């Protein structure tokens, strides 16, 4: 067996050599070199004890430094099962070891929380995705239905306006016709009055003619009766015509109100159709297209969130 250098007691002046040997090891340790240990200094109890004490100090410091480095590296790598070994550590070494152990625990908890948060983020992403998919499908379906309904309604409204306008024309025709009737009746009325006047003069002349005018008087009387009946009938007709005209005016007002309402409704329906299908003139996006955009945007967001 070769004689190990650590076993050789220093030659020469024992005390000085021993102190230099200690100083050398301490300086190396102070510089962060924990490989050096104090070699055998001599056989006296004091030398043995000093060597043992210094080497124990170096061993514990060495152990602490190795643990601090390795445990922190393990924590940084996420290997939280690797604990700081505080065995063989006393006093401040132990307190610092426990402190590092606690910070490892905190890191482990944080890592768990981050992992849990990441997991719930993924769950949320899945939920959001299925919700958005379902929503956008329903929007697209509803938009389609709304678009078709709006087009149908617009068609109905146009037809209703046309019908109402035709009705208005008919009523106006009726009003014009009744006006003409009224003029005709006025004319008849004037004729009847003149006929009455004429029959009166005829009956006076018949009376002056005496017996010779008797037959003529009968005719004059008949004429008067006819004229009177004509006048009465004309009055009734005028009343009827007035009633027809009043009714036509009401009908015209109502029809105008109806067409105005339908036109307003038509504008609203056009608005709905534009909201659903989009409006190229105003560069607005339709609802079904918006649903597709929503889906695309959410997919893009989810891809980023899942990364």
């Amino acid at each position: 067996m070769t004689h190990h250098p650590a076993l050789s007691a220093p030659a020469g002046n024992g005390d000085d050599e021993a102190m230099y040997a200690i100083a050398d090891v301490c300086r190396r340790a102070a510089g962060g070199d924990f490989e050096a240990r104090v070699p055998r200094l001599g056989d006296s109890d004091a030398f043995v004890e000093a060597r043992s004490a210094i080497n124990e100090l170096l061993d514990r410091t060495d152990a602490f430094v190795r643990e601090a480095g390795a445990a922190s590296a393990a924590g940084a790598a996420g290997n939280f099962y690797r604990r700081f070994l505080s065995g063989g550590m006393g006093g401040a070494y132990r307190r610092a070891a426990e402190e590092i152990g606690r910070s490892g625990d905190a890191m482990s908890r944080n890592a768990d929380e981050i992992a849990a948060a990441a997991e719930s983020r993924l769950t949320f992403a899945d939920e959001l995705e299925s919700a958005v998919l379902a929503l956008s499908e329903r929007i697209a379906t509803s938009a389609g239905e709304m678009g078709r309904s709006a087009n149908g309604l617009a068609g109905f409204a146009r037809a209703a306006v046309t019908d109402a306008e035709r009705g208005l024309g008919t009523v106006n025709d009726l009003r014009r016709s009744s006006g003409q009737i009224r003029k005709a009746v006025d004319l008849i009325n004037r004729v009847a009055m003149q006929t009455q006047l004429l029959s009166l003069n005829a009956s006076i002349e018949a009376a002056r003619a005496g017996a010779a005018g008797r037959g003529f008087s009968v005719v004059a009387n008949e004429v008067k009766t006819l004229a009177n009946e004509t006048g009465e009938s004309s009055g009734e007709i005028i009343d009827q015509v007035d009633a027809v005209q009043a009714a036509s005016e009401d009908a015209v007002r109502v029809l105008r109100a109806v067409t105005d309402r339908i036109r307003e409704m038509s504008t609203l329906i056009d608005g709905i159709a534009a909201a659903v299908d989009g409006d190229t003139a105003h560069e607005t996006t339709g609802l079904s297209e918006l649903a597709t955009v929503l889906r695309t945007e959410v997919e893009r967001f989810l891809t980023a969130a899942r990364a």
Partner: protein
Amino acid sequence: MKNTRVRPTGRERTFSEDELIVTKTDPRGSITYANDVFLRMSALHEEDALGQPHNLIRHPDMPRAVFKLLWDTLKDRREMFAYVVNLAADGAHYWVFAHVTPSYDDTGRVVGYHSNRRVPSRSAVTAADDLYRVLRAAESRHDRPQDAVAAGHAALQQILAERNRTYDELVWDLSAGGAR
């Protein structure tokens, strides 16, 4: 070497929780430093230990595969933890929770290895003993050392696979039982 002929007596020796067993070796595994606790536990004088290969205290109960893993891990410049039973020169044995790390110089070159051993919990010792019995049984079926190592290694990998743990995780599972 005379130490390989030491016969285990079955007597167990323990050390205190406050103590550290420390040795350093050169890159080839020869002991360059052994502290007082190591010498006391191993029943060795300093001159019997220094310059000797570290298997000086090798106990026959230790599976070869564990030492193979130890050296592979250290060559990878990683720290290694292991429960180890050592054989003292007087035939007694002692269990340790060993933490072996490479020592580097300022340029990052490995200048040797350093081993700190702490006293393990009894539950960890029992579990390690059971594990090693299985590995040893696998190794004992082979005569050639390299075959024995391979068989022990395969048995260890199978146990780890069954438990879905890495070796490090398994070791720390045992430590959770109380190794400080």
